[in-house]
């Protein structure tokens, strides 16, 4: 059934269809619409789930760690400061091998307070052992959330479905909502591999000496590797039922492209327009959209960029002192490939600033007309004068 939904609503519908059993969350703009709807679904009985109205994001994730360890399917949603507050428990959730699913609305971190889109919040959690998906539109958000449950439960790792603040969370689009019976076929009830059970008392998460800890960490890394192949199969199964597939990466006209834009999130949509305009002018340009960030789709990135000469990475984030984060990832994926393309790194759209088609075109020409990339990431669209003061 098609309905016109906000990205936030698309998340909520997926969580309803996934039949999450314990939901725990704390409000933060722009995540609030997700949890308001789910709170209503729990109160009215539209979902047979318990909604915990906890006193912080830290407790939201802690309570889900308790719930998921007791053998039920769980969900939370957060953004920015809330995700940062959860940091310790992000590690805990993956270390405890709990398939918790979270929607994370990409928002800038303070100070100063800024509620608009920026990927630095989720990307700075890249080493926490969470699977991370970056979505382009509301349909993808809904589909990916359902797939995230199946994947997380298969490999026993938590998963984060990431969507851009406002451009996606608060934008209405037509979304096809799958039939509940079909979803049940795709995602059967949660079958925990372990749980707290008085009939079979076990201790979870206790002291681990160096004699065992390393193997446990290696297991997590292996599970991440497995998640990549599992996801491809899961998408296959999903496509059979629902006729939609996105890929861990999506290569658009990369085969004959000299310059490839590398994008994630809603910037991809804008980039598709720019691609069309540039192609019409005869430019050999492509797009590589990265959907799956963790585990890192190294092989897929290499394959898609096989014949490109240059890749222009658009980062709506920054690791201060090291530049755009996707750019670092792409360099890492390519560095041992003989004759790999040059990697150009651009930072754009920080803190909710628009990434316009004009800006993307500017990035294209800059990349095409330069012999070698600069050492550092290039910040695009910076103002030279702010409040009457010239920036040095």
């Amino acid at each position: 059934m098609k309905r016109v939904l906000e990205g936030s609503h698309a998340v909520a519908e997926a969580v309803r269809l996934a039949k999450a059993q314990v939901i725990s969350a704390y409000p933060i703009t722009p995540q609030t619409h997700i949890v308001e709807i789910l709170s209503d679904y729990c109160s009215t009985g539209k979902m047979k789930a318990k909604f915990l109205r906890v006193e912080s994001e830290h407790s939201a994730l802690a309570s889900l760690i308790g719930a998921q360890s007791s053998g039920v399917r769980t969900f939370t949603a957060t953004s920015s400061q809330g995700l940062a507050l959860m940091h310790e428990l992000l590690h805990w959730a993956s270390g405890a091998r709990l398939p918790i699913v979270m929607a994370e609305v990409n928002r800038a971190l303070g100070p100063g307070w800024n509620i608009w889109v920026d990927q630095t919040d989720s990307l700075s959690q890249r080493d926490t052992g969470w699977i991370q998906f970056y979505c382009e539109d509301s349909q993808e958000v809904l589909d990916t959330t359902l797939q995230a449950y199946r994947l997380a439960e298969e490999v026993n790792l938590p998963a984060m479905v990431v969507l851009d603040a406002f451009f996606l969370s608060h934008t209405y689009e037509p979304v096809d909502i799958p039939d509940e019976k079909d979803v049940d076929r795709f995602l059967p009830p949660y079958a925990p591999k372990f749980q707290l059970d008085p009939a079979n008392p076990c201790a979870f998460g206790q002291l681990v000496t160096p004699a065992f800890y390393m193997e446990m960490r290696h297991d997590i890394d292996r599970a991440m590797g497995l998640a990549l192949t599992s996801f491809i199969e899961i998408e296959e199964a999903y496509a059979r039922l629902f006729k939609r597939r996105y890929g861990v990466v999506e290569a658009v006209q990369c085969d004959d492209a000299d310059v490839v834009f590398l994008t994630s999130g809603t910037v991809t949509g804008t980039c598709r327009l720019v691609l069309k305009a540039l192609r019409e002018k005869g430019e050999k340009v492509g797009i590589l959209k990265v959907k799956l960030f963790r585990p890192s789709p190294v092989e897929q990135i290499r394959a898609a960029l096989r014949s490109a000469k240059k890749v222009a990475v658009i980062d709506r984030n920054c690791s201060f002192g090291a530049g755009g984060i996707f750019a670092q990832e792409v360099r890492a994926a390519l560095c041992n490939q003989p004759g790999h393309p040059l990697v150009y790194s651009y930072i754009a759209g920080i803190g909710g600033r628009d990434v316009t088609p004009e800006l993307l075109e500017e990035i294209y020409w800059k990349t095409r007309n330069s012999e070698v990339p600069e050492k550092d990431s290039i910040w695009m669209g910076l103002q030279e004068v702010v409040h009457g003061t010239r920036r040095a």
Partner: protein
Amino acid sequence: MELDALDQELMYSGHTGCPGCGATIAMRFLLKALGDKTVVVMPASCWSVIAGPYPQCAVKVPLIHSAFETGGAVASGVRAALDLKGDKETTVVTWAGDGGTFDIGFQALSGAVERNEDFIYVCYDNEAYMNTGIQRSSSTPYGAWTTTTPGTDWKKLRKKNIVEALVAHRIPYAATANIAFPEDLVRKAQKAKSIKGSRFIHIFASCPTGWRIPSEMSIKIARMAVQTNIFPLYEVEDGVRYTINYKPREYLVREYFKLQGRFRHLTDKDLDEIQEMVNEDWELLLRKADAHA
């Protein structure tokens, strides 16, 4: 009181606590009282070590270790999941130290009891962060030496009254207990088990290592804490009905202080001042009990 319960042993003897550790005695009696249909949530504390390293475990009930400040929240989630699975029988109990309760875990605890989550929160109180090497907490009493209140910088602030803080949340049941009064402890744990909603038990649990006392003095000193009115035994129902379980006045506080290395530096004048404080706290408690009698 179900005294038969005391025969049931849900803790193994091979734990890794120090000799004379009050926290291990407290757990043993608590589990005897609650029985095997219990899930324990355990924030970081000495007990994270006492419970034993993987793949061993010192208790015979399901146990989930948790991050230091999450005792109230993890228990909320466990309870929610058990309820959804239709398990109304299992008791969820958080077992945290004073640091995990009075300090870093206070927010999650306050949040959980404000929601009246259906669980028992037990704080075993050894009056400092022992796991990390005897640092002061807001439970460390006036006068105490710790590694972060060393020398003449001994703690000159009063211990936070955690039971009153919980009582202010109007929870159905709050009580103090002490390892030297096991029958009282077991009765309170069983009473807590029979009540729904958020219940809080504050157990005084001596720590020979941190208090600088011989291990064989563990029980004696814990008992004296009650007998001097330093740690009164009482219960509060629904945030208003106070019952004092023991009205002693057998020793002056100096007797209790003299036995412990952590108080060695205190002068007679300091001890007189402490006596005043203890008297004042006790009078206040009596007034509350009378007011609601």
